[in-house]
């Protein structure tokens, strides 16, 4: 670590508690001027808590924050903080009822005079173009999908002109090309001397854009090192506290005569996808890939009943669930992980146990009653299976860290031993270890005889699939069997190799 000058940012022995949870325990971080510094750790290690302290949203119970050697502004002085640091938070800070342009320039729409909306929109368009975000600046932010919202947040933080920028899992909801564009921006900013803190569970990204890395584990600082001095396995073992083991996709063979558990026939939804046919057999995992507006999310959401298709049929275990009705699809034996966990994933005020058992409540007691004991037992098993970091089954999901909330959503999908599974970006925001657990859970389900559709922007996730169906502009263009190389699949997704 270059010790030459005062660090740009320093947090010293910070402690932060939430009720019984100690989110940060005497932890600290030192980030030197001009570097891109990675912060990694398992879900619930306290990364986002540090972010909220470094951006002045929360006051630490103990410890202090220094910017260029000077104490940070007081918590009330929001302008002071804003001058020091810009941030992409893990939780969305987009205001749905306002337009994209206004979100982009929130609280800085104008200098002193009245706001000139026309020029604001023009400025917004410039920024959006610069970051390659293809949305109309006049649209309501609430109409954007998660990915577009994430891009908007990133564009906002980067365009702010701050000398220190924090990015808390910016890539978790982006696809490959968007991540690449982000990294280009980050490199450009670094060449202008901007300091950055970067949080991600994709360790290869750390190696791509960061110079140094700090690891947190169980609310404590474990180590800080230059990236090149820390090989991948050592980084993982620092995070997990045990030796790393790479994830090996299991080999499976699907009987070609196994029953079709989930199928789409001639499915079309205007503006999203057209004429899609898909059949998933028992014991099979089918990947669904595609970049930018390929329609894969729309298709997956139709399969589970979040949308009603304009034409065509969906079958689950031979049944035809009522189009646009999730519960009848679930009743037919489907399990489902939605794209946006905050929207369709969980009820923040309800406990882990209740969220995870929502679809199986009818099995947890007689005559419509739900036995708290049974529910607790089920939930404890899920917590253990998926290694959810929580104070217990009764903790509200809203209080969990992002990755752990994602695991609860996964637990909910698997709760009913579904015979058909549709999972959309299931590992978004989930740490390396947990990712293995989640993907393992999908494979387990397949081994039990379920058929799964796995929609993901991450090539790593798709490796467990028996075949990957690639969509391009709303149509299925190719089916790639197991054993593909990254470049090959990307080429198909980009539409280069669609024979």
């Amino acid at each position, binding site marked *: 670590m270059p010790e030459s000058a005062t660090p740009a940012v320093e947090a010293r022995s910070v402690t932060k508690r939430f*009720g*019984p949870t100690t989110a940060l325990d005497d932890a600290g971080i030192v980030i030197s001027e001009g570097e891109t510094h990675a912060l990694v750790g398992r879900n619930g290690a306290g990364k986002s808590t540090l972010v909220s302290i470094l951006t002045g949203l929360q006051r630490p119970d103990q410890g202090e924050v220094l910017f260029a050697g000077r104490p940070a502004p007081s918590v009330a002085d929001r302008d002071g903080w804003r001058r020091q640091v810009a941030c992409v938070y893990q939780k969305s800070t987009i205001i749905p009822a306002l337009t994209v342009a206004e979100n982009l320039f929130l609280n800085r729409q104008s200098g002193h005079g009245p706001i000139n909306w026309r020029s604001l929109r023009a400025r917004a368009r410039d920024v959006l173009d610069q970051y390659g975000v293809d949305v109309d600046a006049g649209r309501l932010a609430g109409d954007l999908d998660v990915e577009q919202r994430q891009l908007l947040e990133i564009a906002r933080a980067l365009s702010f002109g701050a000398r220190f920028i924090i990015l808390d899992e910016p890539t978790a909801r982006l696809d490959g090309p968007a991540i690449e564009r982000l990294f280009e921006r980050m490199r450009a900013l670094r060449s202008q001397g901007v300091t950055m803190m970067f949080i991600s569970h994709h360790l290869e990204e750390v190696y791509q854009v960061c110079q140094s890395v700090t690891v947190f584990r169980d609310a404590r600082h474990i180590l800080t090192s230059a990236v090149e001095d820390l090989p991948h396995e050592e980084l993982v073992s620092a995070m997990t506290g045990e030796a790393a083991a790479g994830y090996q996709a299991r080999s499976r063979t699907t009987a070609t005569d196994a029953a079709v558990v989930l199928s789409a026939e001639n499915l079309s939804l205007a503006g999203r996808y057209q004429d899609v046919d898909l059949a998933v057999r028992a014991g099979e995992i089918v990947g669904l890939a595609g970049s930018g507006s390929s329609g894969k999310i729309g298709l997956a959401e139709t399969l589970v009943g979040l949308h009603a298709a304009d034409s065509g049929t969906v079958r689950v275990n031979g049944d035809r669930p009522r189009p646009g009705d*999730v*519960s009848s699809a679930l009743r037919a034996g489907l399990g489902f992980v939605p794209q946006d966990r905050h929207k369709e994933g*969980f*009820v923040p005020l309800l406990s882990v146990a209740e969220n995870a058992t929502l*679809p199986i409540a009818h099995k947890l007691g007689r005559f419509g009653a739900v036995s708290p004991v049974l*529910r607790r037992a089920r939930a404890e098993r899920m917590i253990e299976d998926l290694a959810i970091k929580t104070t217990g*089954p009764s903790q509200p999901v809203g209080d969990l860290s992002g990755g752990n909330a994602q695991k609860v959503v996964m637990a909910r999908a698997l709760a009913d031993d579904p015979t058909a599974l549709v999972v959309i970006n299931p590992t978004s925001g989930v740490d390396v270890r947990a990712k293995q657990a989640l993907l393992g859970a999908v494979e387990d389900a397949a081994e039990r005889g379920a058929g799964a559709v796995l929609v993901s922007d991450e090539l790593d996730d798709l490796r467990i699939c028996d075949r990957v169906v690639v969509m391009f502009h709303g149509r299925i263009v190719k089916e790639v069997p197991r054993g593909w190389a990254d470049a090959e699949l990307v080429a198909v997704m980009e539409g280069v190799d669609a024979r």
Partner: protein
Amino acid sequence: MTETTVASPGTPGGSPGPRDTTRGEGSGLRLARFRDLALVPAILLLMVVGALLEPAFLSGDNLTNVLQQQTELSLLVLAEAMILIAGKFDLSLESTVGLAPALGVGLVIPIASNGIGTDLPVALGIPICLLIGVMIGAFNGLLILRFKLSAFIVTLGMLIVLRGLQIGFTGGQNLFALPESFLYLGNARWLGLPASIWICAVAYAAGIVVLGYFRHGRSIYAIGGNVDAARAAGVRTDRVVWAVFMIGGFLAALAGLLMTGRLGSVAAAQGDGMIFTVFAAAVIGGVSLDGGKGTLFGALCGVLVLGLINNILTLAGVSAQWIQAIYGGIILIALMLARVTSGKAQD
């Protein structure tokens, strides 16, 4: 008081198991979950104050009076609390309190006693009354769920329409030629206590059990907390919300029935202005207007707090001139007390 660890009915599965990272202030989180108990200290304090002010306060008679006087309000609060937890609103409950019994009575009594003139069999009176409550709830639900109108304005409109219909049908007259059956529930005593108290107790017990331990009850919380997530988890949200509105209408009609019996007539303004108190009791009891939060037990506590304050002010003989200011002041203080003892921000 604040160290209680009794699992409250509304938050089952609540015992927080031991955890590794637990260091220090464990009780904070545990307590936060018992915000529905927040009013218990206030209630006890009021009991003590009442007893000190006036020996008659603690007499069985007086306490029974307090309870009986709150029965209709508490049924409305039960209805409203459920609807609020489901993330909706119903302002029209107060009109149902008047209209349902007015029609129930008006359709069966002769025109000479201000009846409507249909002279239906008297035995149909009570079923009609309750059915009208359910139908009003169903109609509200229809407008809100099918036509996607705002619950607040639909039920505000209905509040005015229903009251207007009652005045229209009865010409603003009170109906006092009540069939015996209408008087029974409001006046009977079962096992030494007014029947209406038993009815309320049963309704609350059922509500607490269903919202605490039954699938459909829990799904109300899920819907109020995040309707998209509830739908994605297979809850038939529209159906549940609709049912909640109908149950709400039913309870309001039942409250109207009890009030009719207790007061011996259907006043043209029966229930007028109650909805404010209903919201006050529910919200004081910890039910959030945002949905998904609060318990029926808490709401019941809210009702009791308001009832006790009223009773104590009456017993204390506060001057007519200042009674309202004092009443409001005590409510504010009770709230702050609840805030301090529960230690959690309200919303």
